[in-house]
């Protein structure tokens, strides 16, 4: 990737906020609750560029999959600078956007055009899926608002009042562009993350987890959605023989013929899913030869690996931007569904959260799911990596057809691992953090 500019991607400005920038995350130095209603709102400025590129799916290492995607870029670069640096180097999935409730969010989208298909002059948009949006201008649906043609940029504005997990995608010719890879997770942290008293409820837990919660999924008022680590995982499918190869080879695809061959978590199919992130902390080793650009692209930067300590309360931020309903299981661990579609599962005072071991997730739906990592057990099936020994729990699709990579014998596809380590990992500093 293009590290020097990527670090500028999340650039925090605004009243009294000293933003500390890290890849994919934003650390705040000021307790926002001390400020007045207007001054409390910080401004977060982000920029994304849209272009094409290639990714690798297991079984097609020698024949990369053509994708469209969003790349995180510096808001201060010009269109021509962006074009010369990023055009043709799309990533999938798009960066996970970590935002704060009630902040002013400005996201600039620049359309760089396509290297593989210079004849295809598609526009792009950002649709923040699920946002209660008080003007269609920022909804990103080109039939009812605007789209961004090649060489242009537009700045979308959002002020999120509902915390929780959402997703975002391009809505221009959506059946094609969503499948082509212009998909990512966006989540909104609650104001309650500034409430030290509620965070300290975590201290009442037994050793070694008598630590304050790192944050909350929702403004629950009682700490019931507190977590130690959180992971954003986007479920998806890849229909290579349709849009991906079709768009590469200038062939039409028929949407109602949809028949995906790969099933992915964060744009990777198992065993790619357990490789680390490509970010400032780790490198996946997963690269794709980009024939157009003559480069080896780290175009699938987002890991789906879930590395935790024994006793951690873990929040999974799950969203589905495939076109099929998926049935996800984490055998051995119970799933506590506390939120869906950026809504706390509570009707008035009535708790509507539920426990399950099989989580259905339809297209366009999101769930916030908690589980408690068990103690490390040396007698259980385990592995080891650079962080030492761990127990493995598989987070996987119940439908074995989706544990296959293009029909090959499994396991593959929509599966990743929860690794519970014998030797504690450091505290998470960004969402979905992986440790090599």
């Amino acid at each position, binding site marked *: 990737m293009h590290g020097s500019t990527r670090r500028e991607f999340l650039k925090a400005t605004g009243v009294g906020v000293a933003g500390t920038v890290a890849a994919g995350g934003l650390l705040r130095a000021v307790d926002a609750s001390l400020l007045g*209603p207007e001054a409390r709102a910080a401004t977060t400025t982000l920029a994304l560029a849209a272009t094409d590129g290639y990714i690798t799916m297991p079984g097609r290492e020698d024949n990369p999959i053509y994708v469209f995607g969003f790349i995180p870029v510096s808001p201060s670069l010009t269109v021509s600078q962006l074009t010369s640096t990023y055009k043709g180097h799309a990533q999938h999935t798009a960066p996970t956007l970590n935002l704060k*409730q*009630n902040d002013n969010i*400005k996201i600039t989208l620049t359309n760089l055009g396509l290297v593989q298909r210079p004849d295809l002059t598609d*526009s792009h948009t950002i649709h923040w*899926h*699920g946002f*209660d*949006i*008080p*003007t*269609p*201008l*920022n*909804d990103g*649906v*080109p*039939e*009812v608002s*605007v*789209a*961004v*043609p090649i060489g242009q940029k*537009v*700045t*979308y*504005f959002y*002020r999120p*009042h*509902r*915390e929780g997990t*959402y997703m975002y995608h391009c809505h*221009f010719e*959506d*059946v*094609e562009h969503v499948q082509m890879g212009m998909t990512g997770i966006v989540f909104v942290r609650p*104001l*309650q993350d500034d409430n030290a008293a509620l965070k300290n409820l975590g201290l009442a837990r037994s050793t070694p987890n008598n630590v304050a919660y790192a944050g909350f999924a929702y*403004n629950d008022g009682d700490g019931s959605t507190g977590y130690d680590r959180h992971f954003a995982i986007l479920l998806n499918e890849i229909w290579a023989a349709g849009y991906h190869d079709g768009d590469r080879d200038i062939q*039409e695809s028929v*949407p*109602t013929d*949809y028949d995906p061959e790969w099933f992915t978590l964060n744009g990777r199919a198992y065993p790619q899913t357990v490789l680390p992130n490509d970010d400032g902390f780790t490198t996946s080793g997963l690269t794709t030869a980009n024939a157009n650009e003559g480069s080896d692209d780290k175009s699938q930067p987002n890991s789906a690996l879930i590395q935790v300590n024994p006793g951690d309360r873990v929040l999974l931020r799950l969203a589905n931007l495939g*076109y*099929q*309903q998926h049935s996800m299981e984490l055998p051995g661990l119970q799933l506590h569904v506390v939120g*869906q*579609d*950026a*809504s706390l*599962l509570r*009707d*008035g*005072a*009535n708790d509507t959260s539920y426990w399950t071991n099989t989580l*259905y997730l*339809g*297209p*366009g*739906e999101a769930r916030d799911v908690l589980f408690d990592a068990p103690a490390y057990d040396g007698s259980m099936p385990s592995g080891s990596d650079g962080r030492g020994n761990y127990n493995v729990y598989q987070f996987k699709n119940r439908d074995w057809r989706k544990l296959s990579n293009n029909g090959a014998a499994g396991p593959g596809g929509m599966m990743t691992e929860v690794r519970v380590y014998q030797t504690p990992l450091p505290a998470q500093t960004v969402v979905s953090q992986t440790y090599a």
Partner: protein
Amino acid sequence: MTHLLRRLGIPAALAVAALAPMDVASGQAPATPKTGMVCTPQNAGGSTYDLWASGGYMQTPDGNSVYMWSYQDAAGDASFQTPGPVLCVTEGQTVSITLHNALPEASSIVFPGQDTEVAATGGTPGLLTTEAASNGTATYTFVAGKPGTYLYESGSDVSKQIEMGLYGALIVRPSAHQSWAYNSSSTAFDPSREYLLLLAEIDPDLHHAVEVASNPNAPAYDFTAVHNRYFTINGRSFPDTIQDNDSVLLPSQPYGSLVRIQPNTPGNTQPALIRMINAGVDNHPFHPHGNHTREIAQDGRLLVAPGGATASTEHFAETIGAGQTMDYLLRWDTQSTDSSGQPYNDYWDPNSNPLPVAQPNYRNLTFKDAHTWYSGNPYLGYKGTMPSGTSSLNICGEWYFPLHSHALNEFSNFDQGFGGMGTLLRVDPAGGCFAAATATKILSGTLNAGSYANLAIDDGKLYKVNSTTTGATRVADWYGQFGGLPAGATNLAITYKGSNSSSASQTVYLWDWTTSSWTQLSGPTSVGTADVTVTPSVISLPANYIGTGTKHGMVRIRVRNSKASTSFVTRGNLMKIVYDAP
């Protein structure tokens, strides 16, 4: 299909006021409302229906036509409709439905989710229920059970007859509260905003096999080879879904699914009700843009916790399973509190609360296929200038958001995207569309200061006219002219606010284009130096007051002030019209 006799399932007077402005004094039946759920009339004398099962054709937006089987509420090809008629009954009512089977095979109706036994007379016993033989009849009688949204469908040869379209909606209303969805005040809704979205899929090859079944070379009907190509809401695929109910463009598909709401205000607190039914065999993940919806019930049962407390849930996408029904409330609140209790105001307004990001230059952007529902302006009730070559379908700055299946392969018409299982949510400005004067003309007196532009906002910026200065009666008489009101606009609400430099007698008029005369709206009233606001009665059917031809869309509001002996200045602060767009 008995278009003219269709009526709303809500009290007629309310329907006329809210949705179907017609001259009731003329004795005409109210026309079908353009949007919203339409209940089929019961037979005279009670809750009985006659339904005919027969074949006909539906149209798809890509120019195809597909042979369907369906229920219809009158005999004959001209009455064919898909899906079946919406049956609205009240809990506890004894409902009797006689099926006249015009299909080439035995058919029937089942009522999943009804509590009491369905008694069938006539016909012959079938696998699931009594069947009417081809060209025969059967009558089904039951006591309508708990309130809610239900499906009715064929109980015969279901792998063919349900695929072919033999399904419809059955609505059971609470006996005590017609504008509650269930027997709970938490399900109260605005009866003028009740919507039905019935989802289904179509495999045109299977339908073709049935259509040509009498041909010896006909392909076999193999339902295991089902490959759906069309995905419908109320029997239509997007963009046909947003056409009016009973659109002449879609003669056998009478039900539109455009959802129209206005922002909730202190005087308009009720949500819209959206009843959803999945009559197909696939699950459909339905995604509302714009705002969350609140699911209050499933399969005709209120969502409650074991202790009886409500257990509704909010969604930006929810999968509705095959055969399920779900009921949703939809609000549009412009000012509210967030989940932490913090108040906020995201009612963006170009004057008082502009968006923190400047509008983009629309000439540098793309409007899909050079036509758009966007107004050219991000603010509700305002329109902007579109780039040349781009046409806007927007009427008065209303907003549109898609409501669609997020299995995006279903948000398609066979091979084309942005079609199929989708419709639009239309958010109208609070109270209706807004219009300001675009010109003024002085009939008596002279211009003192200002122009028509000063009349648009209640801001103390004034349009001033000097009265005449001679004679026993001094007069300041002028009118504001409005342009661009659409033909078919209804419920004209006029507001004029102004004052005089010294007290004078004020009368307000409206120009009647059919008689070329002024119709008096208010007055004479004495208006002095303090602003007086005049709000004449809402004109539900203003056709005579909206110009046609070269005067297309023009409305004139006249303000005449007069006073004996003393000259004065009349001062207009605000002159506006709010109306319901067609």
